């Protein structure tokens, strides 16, 4: 995982099996109450929402590109090796020429490797934009997928590439457990799973925990909108040895503050305290691995 990085530069991913549990709310408010310089990476590149709350104005854009093949028609002899190798229909060979579909290309470089005449070179193709800005102590990194691009993980890898190695980072993951989430969680040191005490929440939490195990990531749970019977959830967490790091009540005020685009930790001080405590727990857990928070 992250053995090579300095002890202070741990990465906390905030994810959730299902959408709408409050993952972004947790990631944002945790960042705001972190108490020291921290990075917040919005990896939900299809629907990045973090900046709606932080409202960073000075965002420096960086292009995310992928290597896609370009055909030199003079050199192409129509042998078809490229089309035959390509698993994604990113390049297609037709009789005497080859056609490239950058939207489908995964950037594996295989076609250029097998081309016998050197007709294929690789060029940079834009698949998204990363914007970096500063809001108080938070260095914000936002990834945004270019409209029409179907391949998400490379843009998320682009976000991760912008992370500094000597400042702690919080990564706001996309919802679910498929490959965009995996791309976010790679090289993370700890996973905070946000759930709610509904049957949907518990069901999708289990999917997320299965993924965490697959990736060998230690994790803890934050329960949002507590107001209902939690027995099922508590029992599950106990059985799986998952610490419940924070429980947020089903307080309409939280919903109202968030719906306005404001941060709960700043608008309602009692919650500010709770997020501050969450930050302390996580910091302790990550700088003293092996101890329970």
């Amino acid at each position, binding site marked *: 995982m992250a053995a090579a990085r300095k002890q202070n530069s741990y990465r906390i991913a905030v994810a959730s099996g299902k*959408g*709408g549990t409050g993952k972004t709310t947790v990631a944002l408010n945790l960042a705001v109450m972190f108490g020291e310089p921290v990075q917040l990476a919005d990896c939900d590149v299809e629907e990045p929402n973090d900046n709606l709350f932080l409202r960073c104005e000075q965002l420096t854009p960086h292009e995310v590109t992928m290597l896609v093949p370009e055909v030199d028609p003079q050199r192409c002899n129509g042998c078809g090796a490229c089309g035959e190798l390509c698993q994604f229909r990113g390049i297609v060979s037709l009789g005497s020429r080859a056609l490239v579909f950058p939207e489908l290309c995964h950037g594996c470089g295989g076609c250029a490797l097998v081309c016998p005449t050197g007709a294929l070179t690789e060029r940079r193709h834009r698949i998204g934009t990363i914007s970096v800005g500063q809001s108080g102590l938070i260095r914000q990194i936002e990834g945004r997928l270019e409209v029409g691009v179907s391949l998400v993980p490379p843009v998320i890898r682009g976000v991760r590439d912008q992370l500094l190695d000597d400042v702690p980072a919080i990564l706001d993951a996309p*919802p679910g*457990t498929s*490959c965009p989430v*995996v791309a976010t969680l790679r090289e993370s040191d700890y996973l905070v799973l946000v759930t709610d005490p*509904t049957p949907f929440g518990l*069901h999708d939490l289990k999917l997320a925990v299965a*993924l965490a195990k697959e990736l060998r990531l230690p994790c803890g749970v934050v329960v949002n909108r507590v107001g209902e019977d939690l027995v099922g959830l508590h029992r599950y967490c106990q059985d799986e040895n998952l610490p419940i790091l924070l429980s947020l009540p089903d307080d309409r005020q939280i*919903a109202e503050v968030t719906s306005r685009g404001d941060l709960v930790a700043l608008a309602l001080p009692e919650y500010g305290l709770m997020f501050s405590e969450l930050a302390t727990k996580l910091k302790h857990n990550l700088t003293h691995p092996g101890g329970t928070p």
Partner: protein
Amino acid sequence: MSKDHIRELVVLSGKGGTGKTSVTASFALLANKAVLADCDVDAADLHLLLTPMVEQRHAFMSGHEAVIRQQDCTGCGICMDSCRFDAIRKDGTVCRIDPVACEGCSVCYRLCPDKAIDFPERVCGEWMVSGTRCGPMVHAQLGVAAENSGKLVTTVREQAWAVAVDKRIPLIISDGPPGIGCPVIASLSGVSLALVVTEPTVSGLHDLQRVLALARHFSVPAAVCVNKWDINPQQTEKIEAAARSAGAAVTGRIRYDRSVTQAQLQQKAAVELDSGAGDDIRVIWKQVTELL
């Protein structure tokens, strides 16, 4: 029954967690006869409310993965050097491929000088055909860390259509995936109506606009309803205005109501309980049936 007589409704949300699945389940109860399709294959939840009895299970294959035959591996590392996805590491004297990172591109399989790599088809999940108290249901579950290309969504839809034609059911109600990527596109193209369930927040408005743009792109008629509208009436009005200017019909509002969760705990849809939100959904359903 010819395909032309069948109507398909997809319920989408843009961002997740707006109550899309709860609304879909209620619609399933209110519809006279419908085939249900759970296209939210990454985090499928509809079955928690409709308690399906599984009648058929099928493995879902998509793409390939590279697997090293350890006994034939000489540890030369050519595969590792050529992998663009950082999926191959050295493990002692042999190389090992991380299946989660493997993109299935076939480069290592082609380059291995000892032909020590296999390239089988990948099992990415499963899909099921089941019976529920509201009618037949087609649903699926994508494997953990699998690629969500939309292919499984397409499979679910195709199977739902097959059931509808076979059982002469003129309506398909589909619980759509969140976001705007390939899975959503796969659930959206060619449907009769897309109903977007959103919430009165800044992200709700932002993501609604992206979904409506997508629906327009694919020439699919769209309608909108705001869930938990009373959390922020001002934002609700903003959203309804935005919907109208995007050419989408506004079908109604659902209030913030704890009974929706109560219903979930009892494995029921909101309309099956005495519920304010349930009543609001009934009104919306009426509007939706008129649009279909």
